[in-house]
């Protein structure tokens, strides 16, 4: 039996300190992936600072930390930054790094499109923030509903125009990335890497890319029509036009965008859980089918954001039914994850803790989603703090916890060094407690009648709850700070990881950490969806000595 010897090339540990000219011109999917991820994390910090100012303002009734106009700009910037510049961008980065390696490819299919797609992101971000220096950024929420964003009600600054341009550029970048992912996965798979053997993270990236490809264009269309209204005097969404048309176009993008932000997370969880439970994923085929069930359903539910605009009740009934049906494929994934750990030998490393934190909290976001899907109940909960709580359980409990799991899981591969475990534990527990402290009681504020996006309130009955929320939100900030410290410390002086510190299943762990620019000297043979485990079991890969678990 031939033994695949995988030598460890030297000097890739200093990737990050390569000359700036290399970073600016590289077409290496790994370096582009790192730049995406760093951009995402910086956006996370900036969007988090916006949120902390918002929480200070709301911590007690009648506060004037910022004036209402600034407040409206801050909530809009928080939403836009987190959704467009953090979660989506970070996930594109981690996929950019991992997908080609996981399928045994040398790079993405279109390296220069990859380069262009990435560099459009800073352009998009700078365009958006330009608003702050030209009289005020977008002030109508991240959704930017017309006619509030129309010239008649928003002519004091160029913030809305910069936002619209920024989103158009962002959509173009996203369409480029999606095309590239799909082509790469279809065309560049290693010998033996059949579709039925793709890692679930790669399947998740296929479904995400299809979604973004379909809904990116309508988003850009909405922004272009809004700009026509503002600059050319058309009447698409003005008070004299059809404001609700804007909502249809926006949410045809906006709801699938939720899944663009969570499906890669589902993929990461599907990688992390089997590795640390020491069992294969339960129901591989039904996991893939569930992904595509979600992709299909997510494009038929957008009007559930519009149950109070006065649609025909049968139309509302349709959107309610389709929305609730998403619970079925999501439930399949949940049960499969739990079944994967059942009878397992579960090691609660930091990535696994984040995976379980995700399962425990995302469940709440999923269940409150059922209440919100029910049209009558939604008319009460819509645009209240209940929705703010729900969407953070989905996007924080969902996307952020999965991203954290992904960071702790793949950091050793990307940098060659482990993220510190002790800081990681603190990172997890502060985030878990801070997150639930912030968002769990927010549900009750919504039930009591506190609308979202109000700059302040006079109701003393809401004061205590808001104070607890604000204190907890600062615990989240502490947690993010711990993450940053851990990343910086571990990157420079963390424990050396070796090729495969977790005894994982997929191809990225077959190469060195970090991988050489060409990824593999020789692509290992693929015989199942767990190629690395096959190689270990057949003795074709010699395991590095690992410390005996105590």
């Amino acid at each position, binding site marked *: 039996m031939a033994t695949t010897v995988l030598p460890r090339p030297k000097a890739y540990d200093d990737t990050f300190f390569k000359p700036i000219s290399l970073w600016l011109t590289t077409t290496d999917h790994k370096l582009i992936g790192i730049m995406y991820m760093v951009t995402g994390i910086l956006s996370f910090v900036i969007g988090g600072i916006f949120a902390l100012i918002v929480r200070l303002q709301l911590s007690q009734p*009648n506060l004037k930390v910022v004036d*209402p106009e600034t407040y*409206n700009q801050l909530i809009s910037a928080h939403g836009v930054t987190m959704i467009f510049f953090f979660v989506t961008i970070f996930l594109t980065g981690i996929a950019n790094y991992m997908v080609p390696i996981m399928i045994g490819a040398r790079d993405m299919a279109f390296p220069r499109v990859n380069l262009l797609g990435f560099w459009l992101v800073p352009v998009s971000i700078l365009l958006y923030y330009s608003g702050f220096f030209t009289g005020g950024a977008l002030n109508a929420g991240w959704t930017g*509903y017309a*006619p*509030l964003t129309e010239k*008649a*009600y928003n002519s004091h600054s160029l913030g809305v125009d910069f936002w619209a341009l920024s989103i158009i550029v962002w959509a173009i970048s996203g369409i480029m990335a999606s095309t590239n992912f799909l082509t790469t996965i279809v065309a560049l798979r290693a010998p033996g890497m059949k579709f039925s053997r793709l890692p679930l993270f790669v399947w998740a990236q296929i479904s995400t890319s299809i979604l973004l490809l379909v809904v990116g264009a309508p988003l850009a269309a909405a922004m272009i029509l809004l700009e026509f209204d503002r600059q050319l005097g058309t009447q698409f969404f003005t*008070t*004299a036009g059809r*404001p609700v048309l804007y909502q249809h176009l926006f949410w045809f993008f906006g709801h699938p965008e939720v899944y663009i932000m969570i499906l890669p997370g589902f993929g990461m969880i599907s990688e992390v859980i089997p590795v640390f439970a*020491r*069992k*294969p994923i*339960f129901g*591989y085929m039904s996991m893939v089918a569930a992904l595509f069930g979600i992709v299909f359903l997510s494009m038929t539910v957008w009007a559930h954001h519009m149950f*109070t*605009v*006065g649609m025909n*009740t049968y139309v509302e009934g349709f959107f*309610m039914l389709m929305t*609730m049906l998403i*619970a*079925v494929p999501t439930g*399949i994934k949940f049960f*499969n994850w*739990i*079944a994967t*750990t059942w009878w*397992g*030998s*579960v090691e*609660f490393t930091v990535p696994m803790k984040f995976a*379980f934190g995700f399962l425990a909290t995302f*469940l709440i976001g999923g*269940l409150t989603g*059922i209440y919100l899907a*029910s*049209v*009558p*109940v939604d*008319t*009460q909960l*819509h645009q*209240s703090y209940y929705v703010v709580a729900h969407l953070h359980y989905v996007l924080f409990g969902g996307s952020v916890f999965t991203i954290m799991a992904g960071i702790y899981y793949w950091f050793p591969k990307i940098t060659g060094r482990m993220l510190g475990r002790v800081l990681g534990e603190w990172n997890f*527990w502060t985030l878990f407690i801070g997150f639930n*402290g912030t968002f*769990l*009681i927010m549900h009750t504020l919504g*039930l*009591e*009648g506190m*609308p979202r996006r109000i*700059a*302040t309130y*006079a*109701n003393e009955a809401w004061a*205590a*709850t808001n104070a607890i929320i604000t204190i907890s939100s600062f615990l989240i900030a502490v947690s993010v700070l711990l993450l940053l410290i851990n990343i910086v410390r571990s990157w420079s002086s963390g424990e050396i990881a070796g090729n495969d510190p977790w005894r994982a299943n997929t191809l990225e762990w077959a190469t060195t950490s970090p991988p050489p620019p060409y990824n593999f000297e020789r692509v290992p043979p693929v015989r199942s969806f767990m190629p690395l485990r096959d190689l270990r079991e057949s003795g074709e890969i010699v395991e590095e000595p690992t410390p005996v*678990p105590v």
Partner: protein
Amino acid sequence: MTSRVFRALITFGGLVALAVALSSCDVGGLHPIFPNPVSPNGQDIYNTYLAISVPAIVIFVGVEVALLWVVIRYRRSRQPVGYIPPQVHGNTPLEVVWTIIPLIIVLAIAGYSFGELQRDFQPISNEQMDITVSGHQFGWDYDYQNGVVVHQEGTLAGDVTPFVVPTHTLVKLRFRGTDVIHSWWVPAISGKTDAVPGYDNFSWLKIDQVGTWRGECAELCGVGHSTMQIIVQSMDQADFNRWMDQQKAGASPSASPSASPK
């Protein structure tokens, strides 16, 4: 040893969760549910919320207990040394079961909700009173269709002119937007209805008790959004008639909006 610390932290986390759960049981101003509804459509929404809660709580408890069971029972330190888990790849009958059961549950919830939707959310035609509510930046106008208009200009403190309705009367509310989109929401009465420029949107209320209820605009509409407070006051028919006569007397010289507090 780390696992002991982990277990202690889990216990602690459980206690925190329990404390939060208990504190949300109507103690200290935290309500687990909407204010007591005073209009039948609000009551139906309340009942729908409770009905959905039954399966939701069962699923929540079931899944969280399963997760805790995995954490406690299947952690590596609790397994025998050298334990190799069964390499199960799936179980088709089981997967079919956990596809069909959630499907039945959501179909039931959707069916129940759709019934309530047909009952309470159609534009009504048997109303005893028809009032046009129009939203503007930043306040509400209530047109009683008899020349009387209540101007409810917004203030942050919420000391706005009340919108007065008679008790035991089915009132049709016709919403109109005059500038941007607003959303009229008084949680104790019913859900919210958007006031969108370009078309009329409908809701209704029927309050059987005398009282005052608060609400506010729920759709971000500009810098004064948080000042768009709402007060709905219900009076019995005699008081309402007296109030209406006063309005007619007061409003006839000039129906200027400056009569209301700014």
